[in-house]
């Protein structure tokens, strides 16, 4: 899977957080993923409102956009966890500075793609599907489904893998777009880059940042 496909998939995935239709309030039931759904819906609405309110400003100044959106996204996406999982077995072998550097590069590249998604996909729609009860009972992990509608009317199914962290907050730990496990795809990509760069983490981090920016 090329980086272009990945970034496009990522743009789609991030657009999911951007545009949403106000859903009729789901009845409060004891569906297993009700709590996760509520958290996701709330965060998405907040994000959408913020972007709509400041659309002109964000298009003009991407740095402000990055910093504004950074806080909101960080509250719902656990970047640290995702970055750690992408590094997989290389994480333990890396120095603390390298771990932090990769997390920063990873987050930056995601936000970068997000900015482009904002400009390109302004008319997209996303529907976060309310819980239906078709979930396993699991106190720590739940999945929330969403449908993303592209301008061509194509429906792209997106699944958020959410987990309950130590502070009892629901956060996104992975996203599955169209059946493709994005976290796993990045993990494979990181592994490939490590092999190509003789397991030099610093070179991989530099390459990661530049690679995604070039392709985006």
């Amino acid at each position, binding site marked *: 899977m090329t980086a272009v496909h990945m970034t496009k998939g990522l743009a789609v995935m991030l657009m999911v957080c951007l545009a949403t239709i106000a859903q009729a309030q789901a009845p409060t039931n004891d569906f297993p993923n009700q709590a996760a759904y509520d958290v996701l819906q709330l965060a998405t609405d907040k994000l959408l409102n913020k972007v709509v309110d400041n659309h002109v400003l964000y298009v003009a100044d991407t740095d402000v956009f990055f910093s504004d959106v950074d806080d909101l996204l960080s509250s719902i996406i656990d970047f640290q966890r995702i970055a750690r999982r992408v*590094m997989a*077995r290389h*994480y333990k072998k890396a120095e603390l500075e390298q771990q932090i550097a990769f997390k920063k590069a990873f987050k930056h590249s995601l936000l970068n793609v997000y900015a482009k998604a904002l400009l390109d996909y302004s008319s997209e729609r996303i529907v976060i599907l309310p819980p239906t009860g078709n*979930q396993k009972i699991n106190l720590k992990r739940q999945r929330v489904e969403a449908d993303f509608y592209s301008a061509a009317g194509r429906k792209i199914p997106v699944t958020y893998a959410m987990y309950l962290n130590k502070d009892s907050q629901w956060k996104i730990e992975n996203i599955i777009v169209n059946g493709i496990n994005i976290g796993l795809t990045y993990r494979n990509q990181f592994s490939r880059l490590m092999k190509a760069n003789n397991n030099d983490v610093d070179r991989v981090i530099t390459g990661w940042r530049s690679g995604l920016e070039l392709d985006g």
Partner: protein
Amino acid sequence: MRNKALEVTVGLFMLAGFLSLIVLALKVSGLTFSGSKDSYTVYASFENIGGLTERSKVTVAGVAVGRVVAIGLDKDDFSGVVEMEIESEYDQFTTDTSAAILTAGLLGEKYIGLISGADDEFLESGATIYDTQSALVLEELIGQFLFNTVNN
């Protein structure tokens, strides 16, 4: 004059031929006589298991480390639950290990590929892998391709 030794030799050759045929058949079908090594059980659920069957291989980096022993359906969320046995000597799989259903070659048989993660804890017997990648179904891919072509 019939030579008994000759007949016995021919008979032995025939036997050897049949035995090799049986060994070949067993190897191809995946059954082995290797003494059951110690193993532990791990579960994983997938949206679509594709053509995965019992006795499909479980691999890490292409190296076989176990086998699929059972495939079931989860009645709560209608996902396919795969029960696999991994040889006990491979016990260093972190709890965030990924399990992906991969294809051997272009249209070959399906098998499971495991990729270890970064967590501190390791999978124990009876644990479930939660980070999974379902099989990519050919018809769905073709459908998406056609849909895109039509729309462009």
